[in-house]
C-alpha cells in the first residue's frame, strides 16, 4: 500500500459497486465450485469476504488479519470437503474479473491503473488459500499415518502367558519403536512368558527389518520373555539366508500355529484330543 490516493479510489469503487460486483463474483465463483456448494452459502461466505477485502484494502490492519483468518477457515473447509486447490483459489481470483468487468464499462483510466495494485492484492489472498489448503492436506495425511500406526500394531493374547503380535506391512524404525513399546507394556501388564511375533504380513525382510526384529526380541528377552518369530515365508527365508542375516538362537517357526504349539509345550500346557484320538 504505497499510494494513499490509489487505494481510496478502488476502495470507493468497491463500496459503491458492492451489489453488482458481489453478484458477479458469486456467479463466477459458483461456476468454479461446480454446484457442490449452494449459491446461498457461497453468497454468505463471499459477502463476508467482500466486506473484509474492502476494509483491508483501505489499509485497515485489523481487517487484514481478520481477512486472512476467514480465508484460512474457508480454505480449510474446502480442503476437508475434497475440493481441489484451484477450485478454491479460482473462487477468490474471480473477484478480480468481477471488478475488472465493471471498471471496463466506465473507461475510468485512473481506476485501470489502480486495478494493478488491487490485482496483486487479490493474488496474494489467492496464494494464501493455496498455502492453507496444502497445510490442511498435510495435516490430514499426518493424522492418517498416525492412525495407521496405531491400527497396525495390535498385541493380542493367544493363551494365558502367551502374547501374539501380528505384523502387517513394512517395518521401519518408527513402527518398530511402536511395536516394541506396545509389546513390552503388554508383557508387563499380562506377565506373559512367551510372545509370538508373526511376520506373515510383512512384505519383505531386509537387513534393516531383521535388525529391528532382533532389537524387539532382545528387549523382550531382557524383560524375561521368550519371543518366537513365525510366518517366515519361503521367499523370505531365502532372502534372509542370501543376505547372511543371523537370527542367532531366536526360535523361528513356519506358521503361527507351530509357534503357538511350541510356546504351549514350553509353558507346560498339554493339548489333548485331536484327529488321531
Amino acid at each position: 500500500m504505497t499510494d494513499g490516493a490509489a487505494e481510496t479510489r478502488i476502495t470507493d469503487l468497491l463500496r459503491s459497486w458492492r451489489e453488482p460486483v458481489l453478484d458477479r463474483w458469486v456467479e463466477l465463483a459458483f461456476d468454479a465450485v461446480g454446484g457442490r456448494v449452494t449459491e446461498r452459502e457461497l453468497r454468505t461466505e463471499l459477502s463476508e469476504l467482500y466486506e473484509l477485502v474492502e476494509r483491508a484494502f483501505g489499509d485497515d490492519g485489523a481487517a487484514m488479519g481478520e481477512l486472512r483468518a476467514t480465508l484460512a477457515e474457508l480454505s480449510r473447509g474446502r480442503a476437508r470437503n475434497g475440493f481441489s486447490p484451484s477450485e478454491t483459489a479460482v473462487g477468490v481470483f474471480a473477484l478480480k474479473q468481477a471488478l475488472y468487468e465493471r471498471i471496463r464499462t466506465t473507461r475510468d483510466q485512473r481506476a485501470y491503473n489502480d486495478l494493478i495494485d488491487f490485482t496483486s492484492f487479490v493474488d496474494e489472498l489467492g496464494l494464501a488459500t493455496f498455502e492453507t489448503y496444502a497445510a490442511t492436506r498435510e495435516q490430514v495425511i499426518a493424522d492418517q499415518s498416525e492412525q495407521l500406526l496405531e491400527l497396525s500394531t495390535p498385541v493380542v493374547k493367544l493363551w494365558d502367558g502367551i502374547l501374539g503380535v501380528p505384523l502387517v506391512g513394512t517395518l521401519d524404525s518408527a513402527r518398530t519403536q511402536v511395536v516394541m513399546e506396545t509389546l513390552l507394556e503388554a508383557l508387563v501388564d499380562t506377565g506373559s512368558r512367551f510372545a509370538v511375533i508373526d511376520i506373515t504380513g510383512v512384505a519383505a525382510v531386509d537387513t534393516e527389518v531383521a535388525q529391528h526384529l532382533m532389537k524387539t526380541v532382545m528387549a523382550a528377552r531382557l524383560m524375561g520373555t521368550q519371543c518366537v518369530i513365525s510366518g517366515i515365508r519361503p521367499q523370505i527365508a531365502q532372502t534372509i539366508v542370501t543376505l547372511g542375516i543371523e537370527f542367532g538362537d531366536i526360535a523361528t517357526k513356519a506358521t503361527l500355529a507351530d509357534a503357538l504349539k511350541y510356546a504351549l509345550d514350553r509353558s507346560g500346557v498339554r493339548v489333548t484330543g485331536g484327529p488321531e484320538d
Partner: protein
Amino acid sequence: MERVPILKIGDVLLVSIQVDLQDQTVLALQEDLADRIVRTGAHGVIIDITAVDIVDSFIGRTFATIASMSRLMDSETVVVGMRPAVAITLVELGLSLGGVRTALDLEEGMRLLGAGAPGARAPAADHS
C-alpha cells in the same frame, strides 16, 4: 556411599535395588555379592530392578560381570522386573546381557531358580 542390601531367602540371595544406581554402588554390590555367595554357598542370585528407571552401559555390563562371576561360583543369576524403557535403552546401547537370565517378576525369577515363593505351589515340573 549407599550400599544395596543383600537378603538371603533359602538357597537364594535377593538383591532389590531401590536407589539410583551410581557406578560406585554397583561396584560395591559386585564385591559384596561375591563375598556373600562364597560365605552362604547360595545357588542363585536374583537382582530385582523393578524400581530402577535408568540403566547405563556401565551398569548393564556390570550385571553381565556379576552373572559370569557368580556362575564361576556355581550360582545362577536372574535379573527380574526390568522396565520396558530400560529394556529398550539397553538394546539401543547394543547390550543384550548375554549369559544373564531374565524374568518378568520376582516370583517368576524364584521359579526359574527352582526355589519357588515361600508357601507357593511346588516348583513347576514343566520343563522335564
